[in-house]
Structure formats: structure tokens, C-alpha cells
């Protein structure tokens, strides 16, 4: 598909996205997304998981337009919380607190909020334009990918999320294996063999992804918070309407434009979404700034750049999810599950088979972004009021919606019990530092990975070489080997360096 072709598809997409019904879903999505982003304790992944059952009553286009609104809206709202409260809930918003909160404390909260909101808008816009330009090309190139290539890329996703995220690989792998085990429950896709069902009839269909996602994200989080609930929540700093003066604009426009260049590529690879690019953007802005001494005390560049990178990384995430069927963040993993529940398989063929849906979704990203800017700039003080919601209601509400959603999946009481068990697993994982994303990815992607592996081995008649017979898969395995070997290499390098400079103290960590 060439550029002109994708532009005309995009115009058609706007036609669909701007129909009154779809504008309403986009508006609902960004409203919910912003509210959820602002509300403490709820991240976009939990929000999308809780809303999965609602989509059973919607057509796919409407559902994905709403999901995309929630994803982007959550990013906008999350920075409000970290600037005004200094206790970021989403990892993507950690960096916003570094400079944004000191700004709010020194009475420049309005400027911090504006720099963040416009940064999200700029990053989202540039990121989505990159998505429009690159996605069809990636899809076209990926059409020739075979079973072995898909298996390789899924293994890469597993290894990358367990190795890059968090600070303990063993715990990452433990989480991944828990997810893979949950994904295996049910009838084997190729032979119909019962696995891990223990002759329970309801388990033969497997554990629905909604139950897994809601259990790990919603129940797990609510119970974990309940275990350590802060009895007196922090008071948010009161703030006026966001605005920027000329001097601030001069300092922020370059970070806004630089952020997406860092954010988009990192969103597209399985490296944990917005966490790494926001830190990289922060470091870059600190290095390039003429006001380096202000960093740590409220430098506006440190809000503008990372926030722009965060939104662009969301667009990069969508690029991988739509063109390769590869979720790189928790939200994308849950969205992939939603696609599958409609019988749609994201991947290179998506742009051919579901062209209308994909382009309507992409067009709605632009529509949603415009809505978000309007919603967030003048209304920020109102959103900030959400920070005062009584915590018992907030977490009781999460438990309530989780139960309703899980029951709506199949009308089974047993699903509620499984939901609670998975929720308790989620609680333990948070307590002992096991990252949640590998488990969700394992449960959602595990069955697909197994299927691709067995297909590849069927083609090669059982010979293991069937997994390595394309240049692409060999390249991916080389990359995996590099990721696995990296800490060892680093340790050796450090030892060599220490020997080269005797007596020098090498910082650990």
C-alpha cells in the first residue's frame, strides 16, 4: 500500500470516526480515560480490562474507538495526578512528578499542567502521524512472515518484558510462567486434549482473558491497596486554569517535538511501554537545557518532553499491536484480547481484511486527541477534584465492577471464584515484586505462541531446525541472546574496567 492509498483510507476512516455515534464513543472514551487517569489506583490497563465486558454489547469499531480514547485519556489524566499529588500511579507518569510537582509547589502548577497537556497532544499527534505513515509499510513487509517468525517474535516479547521490566529477572520469569500456565488451561487447540482442567466442565473452555486481566489488574490492585491503605490520603495542591506564557512556550516547544522521536520507537518494541522513553526524554532535556540548574526544582522542559514521549509511545504500541499482533504494554495486551473476542486477529492482514475498522480507529485517535486537549486545558481544576474521592468508595467500586464484568462473561458463579483466586495471585505478585505484565502477556500470547511453534514444527516434520529456517527468525533469536547475555557482558566489562584502573571505586547497581 503506498502513501496516497493510506491517505485515502485515512480520509474514509475520518468519515467513519466522525459519524455521530462514533464521536460519542470517542468522547465517552476520553472522558472515562481522563477520569481514570486522574483517579488514584486505577491505571489505563485496569480500565480497559474492566470495560471489556461492556464491549460485548457494542460493534467492534465503536469498542476500539472507545478503548483508544481511554488509552490516550489515561495518559493525559495520569500526569495531572503526579503533578498535583506527587505520587504517580502509572509508571508513565513517574517522570512528570520529578519536575511537575516542584512546579506545582512553587505556585506554577497551572504552567506544569499546560506543558503536560500540550505535550501529550503534540506527542500523540506526531506519534499517530508516524503510525499512519509506517504501519501500512510494516504490515506489507510482515505479510510474508511464517509460523517460525511469529514464534520467534513472541519469544522475544516474553524475554524482553521479563528482562527489561523491574529489577529481578527471576521474578519476571516467575510471573511469565504463571501466565503461561493460566493460558494452558482448557482444551488443546490442535488435538482437543484436556489440559489442567481437572475434569471440571467449566474449565474446558479455558479461563477467559477477561477474568485473567480483571483479576490481575483490578482485584489484585484493589486488594493490594487495601492491605496498605493510606489512612489519610495526601492533599492535592489546588491549581488554577492551565496556561503558558511566552517565555515558557519558548522553552517547551522543542521538548514537545523531540519527545515523540524517543517515545514512538520505544513504544513499538517490547520494552515496557512509556517507562524507558520518558526517562530517556527527561535525561535528554536535562542535557540540552540552558536551565540545567533548575532541574529537580521545577524545570518545565522536564515536564514537556517526557509527557510528549509518553503519548507518542502509546502510538508506537498501537503500531506493533495492529501490524504484528504483538502487544508491548498491558493496555495493548488487553486490547489484543478484545480483538480476539470479536474473532479479529490483529496482524499484517488486519489492514487488508479489516481496513475500515483500522482506519476508523486511527482517525478516531486524532479526533480523541483534539477532544482531550479541549477537555484538559480549561477543565483541569475540575478533574483535580476527582483526587478527593473517598477511597472506600473508589476501591469498593473497582471490586463491584470487576465482579459484574466477570459474571457478564458467561453467567457463571465459578468465574467469580476464579476471579478472586487470580486476584489473590495478583496481590501476592505486587507484595513480592513480581511484575504483572509478563503474566498477562503469557496468558494472552501463550496459546498463540504454542500454536505457531507447533505449526512450524509440523511443517519441518518435527525437526527443530524448522524454528530457525528464516533469516528473520535467526535475527530475532540473536537479539534474544543479546538481551539474555547483556547482564553477564556488563559484569565482565565492569570487572575488566576495574582491573584497568586499580583502586578506582566502581559504583554498583
Amino acid at each position: 500500500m503506498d502513501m496516497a492509498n493510506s491517505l485515502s483510507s485515512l480520509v474514509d476512516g475520518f468519515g467513519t470516526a466522525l459519524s455521530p455515534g462514533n464521536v460519542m464513543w470517542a468522547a465517552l472514551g476520553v472522558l472515562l480515560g481522563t477520569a481514570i487517569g486522574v483517579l488514584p489506583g486505577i491505571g489505563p490497563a485496569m480500565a480497559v480490562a474492566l470495560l471489556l465486558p461492556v464491549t460485548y454489547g457494542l460493534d467492534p469499531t465503536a469498542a476500539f474507538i472507545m478503548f483508544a480514547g481511554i488509552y490516550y485519556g489515561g495518559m493525559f489524566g495520569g500526569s495531572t495526578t503526579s503533578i498535583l499529588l506527587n505520587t504517580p500511579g502509572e509508571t508513565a507518569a513517574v517522570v512528570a512528578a520529578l519536575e511537575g510537582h516542584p512546579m506545582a509547589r512553587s505556585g506554577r502548577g497551572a504552567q506544569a499542567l499546560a506543558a503536560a497537556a500540550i505535550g501529550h497532544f503534540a506527542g500523540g499527534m506526531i506519534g499517530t502521524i508516524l503510525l499512519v505513515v509506517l504501519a501500512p509499510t510494516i504490515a506489507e513487509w510482515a505479510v510474508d512472515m511464517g509460523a517460525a517468525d511469529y514464534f520467534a517474535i513472541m519469544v522475544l516479547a516474553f524475554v524482553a518484558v521479563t528482562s527489561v521490566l523491574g529489577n529481578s529477572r527471576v521474578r519476571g520469569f516467575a510471573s511469565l510462567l504463571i501466565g503461561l500456565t493460566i493460558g494452558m488451561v482448557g482444551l488443546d487447540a490442535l488435538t482437543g486434549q484436556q489440559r489442567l482442567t481437572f475434569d471440571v466442565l467449566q474449565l474446558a473452555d479455558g479461563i477467559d482473558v477477561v477474568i485473567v486481566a480483571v483479576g490481575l489488574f483490578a482485584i489484585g490492585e484493589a486488594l493490594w491497596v487495601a492491605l496498605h491503605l493510606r489512612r489519610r490520603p495526601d492533599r492535592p495542591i489546588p491549581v488554577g486554569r492551565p496556561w503558558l506564557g511566552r517565555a515558557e512556550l519558548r522553552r517547551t516547544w522543542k521538548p514537545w517535538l523531540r519527545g515523540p522521536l524517543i517515545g514512538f520507537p520505544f513504544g513499538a518494541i517490547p520494552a515496557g511501554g512509556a517507562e524507558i522513553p520518558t526517562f530517556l526524554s527527561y535525561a535528554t532535556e536535562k542535557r540540552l537545557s540552558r536551565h540545567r540548574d533548575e532541574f529537580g526544582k521545577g524545570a518545565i522542559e522536564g515536564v514537556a518532553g517526557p509527557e510528549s514521549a509518553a503519548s507518542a509511545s502509546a502510538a508506537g504500541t498501537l503500531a506493533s499491536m495492529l501490524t504484528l499482533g504483538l502487544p508491548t504494554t498491558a493496555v495493548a495486551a488487553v486490547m489484543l484480547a478484545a480483538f480476539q473476542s470479536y474473532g479479529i486477529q490483529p496482524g499484517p492482514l488486519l489492514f487488508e481484511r479489516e481496513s475500515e475498522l483500522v482506519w476508523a480507529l486511527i482517525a478516531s485517535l486524532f479526533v480523541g486527541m483534539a477532544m482531550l486537549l479541549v477537555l484538559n486545558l480549561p477543565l483541569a481544576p475540575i478533574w483535580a477534584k476527582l483526587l478527593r474521592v473517598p477511597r472506600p468508595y473508589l476501591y469498593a467500586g473497582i471490586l463491584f465492577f470487576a465482579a459484574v464484568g466477570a459474571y457478564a462473561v458467561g453467567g457463571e458463579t465459578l468465574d467469580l471464584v476464579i476471579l478472586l483466586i487470580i486476584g489473590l495471585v495478583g496481590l501476592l505478585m505486587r507484595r513480592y515484586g513480581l511484575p504483572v505484565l509478563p503474566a498477562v502477556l503469557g496468558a494472552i500470547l501463550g496459546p498463540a505462541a504454542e500454536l505457531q511453534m507447533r505449526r512450524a514444527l509440523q511443517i519441518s516434520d518435527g525437526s527443530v531446525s524448522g524454528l530457525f529456517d528464516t533469516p528473520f527468525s535467526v535475527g530475532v533469536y540473536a537479539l534474544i541472546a543479546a538481551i539474555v547475555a547483556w547482564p553477564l557482558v556488563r559484569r565482565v566489562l565492569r570487572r575488566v574496567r576495574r582491573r584497568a584502573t586499580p583502586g578506582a571505586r566502581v559504583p554498583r547497581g
Partner: protein
Amino acid sequence: MTGIRPWLRERSELGVCALLLVLGALVLGDVLTMDVDIEQRGPVGPTTMPTVVGVALLVVAALLAVDVLRGGRGEAEGGEDIDLAAPGDWRTVLLLAGVFLGNAVLIEPLGLPASGALMFWGSAWVLGSRAYHRDPLIAAVLSVATYVLFDSLLGIPLPGGPLMEVL
């Protein structure tokens, strides 16, 4: 260093190792009880993946145990409403789990509007809310509105229970 209890309390993460060990044994046990030769299509059957995952679970359980014994600790997750300095309030968690299971038992006989409202009120109470007029009101409105949204507007059937038959 007196007695085994403080030693274990300090290393409670070993419980995670035990869970992984049990899970691995469960997966491998399931592989052993499968009748694979019924319909084995292709060289790699339905047992390959569980075998790999099961063995990996045992290995990771062992590696994690070694890490914990050498002083490694998983870092508990922080958050806006989380105060890690406070000791864990397991009573609240157990009560919430009880309220949640209560809803699972009651949802079919009572219907979602009634059981859901009870669950919301119960959870809010467990979490420390004591507004005896406002709490049940919010619970009832939320529960009935959600029921109407799912059942009537979205067309996803939920049990209404006797209450909804009267209305």
C-alpha cells in the same frame, strides 16, 4: 536469631517459591495423566508446552529460593494510596475476599442489584467508610444503574432477582 518464626517471617518470599513449586508439580502431574496417543497430530503434541512450562516453574522456584536465601527481596509495588511503611492489614483483605465470595453466592438467588449493592456497601464498610445514610444509598444507585445499563441498554443479560421482578 532465636527460633524459626522470625527467620521465616524475614523470608516470607519463600512462600512464593513454594507456590511456584506446587504449580510446577501440578502442571507436570497433569502431563503424566494425559492420554496423549489418542490423536497425536504432528510431531509435537499437547504435552510439549506443559512439560517445558512445568520444568521451568520448578527451576524458577529453585532460583528464586536461592535468591531469597542470599538476601534478595522482591520490591513491593508502590502507588498513590499505598503506605508501605504501615504493616500489612490482612484482616481487611480477608474481609474483602469474604464479601466478594458472599456476592458470588448471592448473585443468583438475590439478583445482581441486591447482591451487588450489598457487596459495595460491605466493601466500603470494610475499607473504613461509616456514613450509614450515604453508603447504602450510593450502593443501591450504583448497583441498579449498572444492572439497567448492562441488561437493558447493552443487551448483556444479568440476573435481576426477585427485586427486579417486582419493579
